[in-house]
C-alpha cells in the first residue's frame, strides 16, 4: 500500500539524501515533486496545497537550512506533518455497563460494509467482547444472506427479518433482541446507495434518531478517488460520524483518502481493512502510516503481528530452547510456518526500515522469497524426524536422499545445515546478552544472511561430483566433439 506515494517522496528526497545543500529554491523543487506524488495518489487538492505550504513554512521557520543535518530534519518534518494530517485517533470502543452498545455502520454501495461488519465482530470477539449482527441492509439483494453466512462463520448471532418490515424497525427489534441475549455489542449493517442521496440519508438519520447508536462508522473504499472526501463530508453532515473505516487497503490503493478525510472533515480513520479474511482488520495508526509512506518501515506493527501469531509461552519456550542450544530444525520448521501466517514475506519486509527497497527490487528481479522459503521447508520436510532432531546424522547418502526428496541439489542441503549450525551457535551466545547487544548480534546474523531466505539465491544450481554415468556421457560427448572437429577440418581443407 502507498507504494506510489512512497516512490514520489523518495524521488523528492533523493536530492537531499545525496547531501545536497538545502536552499529555499530546492526545497521548492522537492515540494513540487511531493505535490505531484500526492495528487497522483488522489489526495484532495486543497489538502495537498495546505500540506506543502505548511511544510515549507515550517522548514524555513525552523532554521532548517542552518541545522547540522538538514535533510534528516526535513524528512522528520514531513513525517510530523503527515502524521498530523491523519491523527490523532482514539480506537477505543467504550462498552456501556448494563446495556448493549450499538455501533452503526454506513457507507456507499460496494465499499465493503457487510464484510467489515463481520471483521469488526471478529475483532471484538478477539478482545473478549460478545457481538451481534443486525441485517438492516434491505436494499442489496442477498446482503442479508451474506451477513448470515458471516455470522455462522464467526459463531455470532445474526438478527434478520423480512425486508418488508423496514430498516428502522429491524434495527429496533435487533437491539431489543440483543438485550435478551447475552450480547454486549450490536453492529448494524445499514443499506448503501450508489451515491449520497436524500432517501438514504433520511433512512440513516431515522435509524440514528430512533436507535441512538453509541458510535457511527463510515466505511470507505480506499480506492475511491477525489470523491471520498465529498461523501465523507455528506455522511458527517447528517450523521456526525465517530470514525472512518478504510477498506481494501491491501491492494495498491494509493491511499489518498487516508490523507484527506481527517483534515477535510475532522473524522479520524480508526480501522483499516487489509485483506479478505475476517481477521484482516487493523487499528489505524497515523504515525506508523506516515512512517510507511516515507519508506521508513513500520516495525511496531510488525512486532504486533508477531505477537498475535506467537503466544508468550511459545516465545519463552523457544527462547529457552535457543539458550540451551536445543533449538532443532523441527522448531525452525514450526517457526517458519508461523511466520508465513503473518503475511507475505514481501509485505513483512516492507515493514522493516530499509527493507522496502530490497523487497521492491525482488519484485523487479522476479525473485519470490515465498518460493525460497518453500524450498527450505521442502528440505526440512524431506528429513526423517530423527534427522531433524539431530542433523549430525546426515551423511553423504542421507543428504542425497533428502536432496532428491526436496528436488534440490545436495549442496543446498549442506548450505542449509551449515547456516542452521551457525545460527544456533549465535543464538546460544545471544541468550546471555542484554537487549542492545542482542540487537547487534541480530544485525550480525542478518549480515550473514540468516534472516534472508534468498541469501542463497542467484547461485546457479550447484553440481556435485559427477557420477559414473555422467562421466561416461561426458566422455562420449568429448569423443563426438573431437570427431566432428576433425571432419570440419577436413572440409575446410578442400
Amino acid at each position, binding site marked *: 500500500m502507498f507504494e506510489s506515494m512512497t516512490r514520489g517522496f523518495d524521488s523528492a528526497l533523493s536530492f537531499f539524501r545525496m547531501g545536497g545543500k538545502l536552499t529555499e529554491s530546492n526545497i521548492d523543487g522537492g515540494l513540487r515533486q511531493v505535490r505531484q506524488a500526492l495528487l497522483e495518489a*488522489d489526495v484532495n*487538492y486543497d489538502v495537498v496545497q495546505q500540506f506543502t505550504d505548511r511544510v515549507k513554512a515550517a522548514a524555513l521557520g525552523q532554521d532548517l537550512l542552518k541545522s547540522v543535518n538538514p535533510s534528516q530534519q526535513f524528512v522528520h518534518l514531513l513525517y510530523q506533518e503527515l502524521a498530523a494530517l491523519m491523527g490523532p485517533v482514539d480506537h477505543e470502543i467504550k462498552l456501556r455497563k448494563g446495556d448493549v452498545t450499538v455501533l452503526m455502520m454506513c457507507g456507499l454501495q460496494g465499499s465493503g460494509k457487510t464484510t467489515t461488519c463481520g471483521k469488526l465482530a471478529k475483532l471484538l470477539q478477539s478482545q473478549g467482547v460478545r457481538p451481534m449482527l443486525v441485517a438492516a441492509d434491505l436494499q442489496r439483494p*442477498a446482503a442479508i444472506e451474506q451477513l448470515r453466512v458471516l455470522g455462522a462463520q464467526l459463531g455470532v448471532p445474526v438478527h434478520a427479518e423480512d425486508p418488508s418490515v423496514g430498516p428502522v424497525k429491524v434495527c429496533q427489534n435487533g437491539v431489543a433482541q440483543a438485550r435478551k441475549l447475552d450480547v454486549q455489542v450490536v453492529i448494524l449493517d445499514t443499506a448503501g446507495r450508489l*451515491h449520497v442521496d436524500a432517501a438514504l440519508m433520511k433512512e440513516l438519520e431515522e435509524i440514528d434518531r430512533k436507535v441512538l447508536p453509541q458510535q457511527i462508522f463510515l466505511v470507505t*473504499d480506499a480506492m*475511491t478517488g477525489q470523491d471520498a472526501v465529498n461523501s465523507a463530508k455528506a455522511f458527517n453532515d447528517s450523521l456526525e460520524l465517530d470514525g472512518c473505516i478504510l477498506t*481494501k487497503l491491501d*491492494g495498491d490503493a*494509493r491511499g489518498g483518502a487516508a490523507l484527506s478525510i481527517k483534515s477535510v472533515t475532522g473524522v479520524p480513520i480508526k480501522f483499516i481493512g487489509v485483506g479478505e479474511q475476517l481477521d484482516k482488520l487493523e487499528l489505524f495508526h497515523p504515525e506508523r502510516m506516515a512512517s510507511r509512506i516515507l519508506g521508513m518501515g513500520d516495525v511496531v506493527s510488525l512486532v504486533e503481528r508477531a505477537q498475535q501469531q506467537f503466544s508468550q509461552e511459545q516465545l519463552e519456550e523457544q527462547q529457552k530452547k535457543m539458550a540451551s542450544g536445543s533449538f532443532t530444525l523441527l522448531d525452525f520448521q514450526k517457526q517458519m510456518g508461523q511466520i508465513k501466517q503473518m503475511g507475505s514475506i514481501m509485505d513483512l519486509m516492507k515493514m522493516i526500515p530499509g527493507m522496502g527497497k530490497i523487497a521492491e527490487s525482488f519484485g523487479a528481479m522476479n525473485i519470490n522469497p515465498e518460493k525460497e522459503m518453500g524450498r527450505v521447508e521442502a528440505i526440512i520436510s524431506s528429513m526423517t524426524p530423527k534427522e531433524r532432531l539431530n542433523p549430525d546424522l546426515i551423511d553423504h547418502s542421507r543428504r542425497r536422499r533428502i536432496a532428491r526428496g526436496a528436488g534440490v541439489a545436495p549442496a543446498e542441503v549442506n548450505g542449509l545445515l551449515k547456516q542452521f549450525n551457525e545460527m544456533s551457535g549465535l543464538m546460544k551466545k545471544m541468550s546471555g546478552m542484554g537487549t542492545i547487544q542482542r540487537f547487534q548480534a541480530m544485525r550480525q546474523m542478518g549480515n550473514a544472511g540468516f534472516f534472508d531466505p534468498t541469501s542463497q539465491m542467484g547461485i546457479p544450481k550447484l553440481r556435485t561430483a559427477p557420477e559414473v554415468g555422467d562421466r561416461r556421457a561426458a566422455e562420449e560427448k568429448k569423443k563426438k566433439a573431437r570427431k566432428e572437429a576433425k571432419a570440419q577440418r577436413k572440409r575446410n581443407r578442400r
Partner: protein
Amino acid sequence: MGLLDRLKAGLKRTKDLLFTDVRDLFKSGEPLTEERLEQFFARLIATDMGVAAANAIREELRKEHLGRLVDVDAIWATVKAQLKLLLKGGEGTSWNQTEPLSALNLGESKPAVILVAGVNGVGKTTSIAKLANLLKKNGKSVVLAAGDTFRAAAVEQLTLWSKRLDCEIVTKPAGSDPASVAHAGCSRALEIGADVVIVDTAGRLQTQANLMKELEKIHRVISARVPGAPQEVLLVLDATTGQNGVIQAKSFSQAVHCTGLVLAKLDGTAKGGVVVAIRQSMNLPVKFVGVGEQIDDLEVFDAEQFVEALFA
C-alpha cells in the same frame, strides 16, 4: 429519457463542480492569468482525470489563451476538443448509439464468450445482469456462468437476476473452482446453441497474485473449451475510483488482455474522470456505462456525448 439526458443527470455533479466554480473562474473581459489556470487545474484534478491529463488541458489553455482577454466560449471549445482527443485515443474509436451491440465484438461462431472481471464491490454482478438484459433485448440468447464462488451470496444474487431476466444460469456450490464453472457455462451454451455466455468472476484486487493466476486459468479454460473465446474481456470499473483505476486496468490487462471497460455507478458520482487517464496511458476504451440502478440503465459509451454532457 434519452441517453444524453441520463448522462447529463449522471454527470450533474461533475458539471456542477466544474461549472459553478468555473463560471466564477473565467469572466469575460478579464485577462486569463496563471492564477486562474491553477484554479482551473484544481477543478480538473477533482474529476479524477489524473495529473497528466489535467496538465495536458492546462497546457493547451495556456498556449491558446494565456494573457488574452477571456472568451468563455473559446475556452470551452479548447477544453472540449482536448478532452475528446484524450478520450477517443489515436484511432478515434466510437460506437453507434442506436446499435448497442456494436461495441461488442461477438465474433462469427457461436457462442461468444464475455469474461467479466474487476476488483471487489465495483458492481460486476449487476453490470452482468444489465449486459445480459441488453443482449436479450437485441435478440441474443444468453447463458450466465456464476463464477463468483467466493463471496457469500454472490451466486444467489446472479441466480435472482437470471430468473428475472429469464435466461439460463450455470452454478456450482460455493468454493468450487471458478474455472470449472466457466467451463460448464461454455459447455451448456454449446449444448443449447446459445449466442452468448457471460462469465462472472469473483472480485479480486490486482495485487493478489494467486487470484490473478486464477483469472488467467479461467481465461485459459474458456479458450480451450471454445476456440477463439473469450471474444470480450470487460473490466468493470467503479466510477468513483481514483488513479488506482489505471493500475487496475494495467494489471488486469496483463493477466487476461482486457478488451474494454464498463464504467459502473456513473450516476450521481462526481467523477468518472479516471477513464481519461486510462485511455491516455493504456488506450483501453470504455464500452459501456452504468447510469442507474435499474436493469435498463446500461448504455454504450460515446465520447462525444460524454464530453458534451460534461459541459452542456
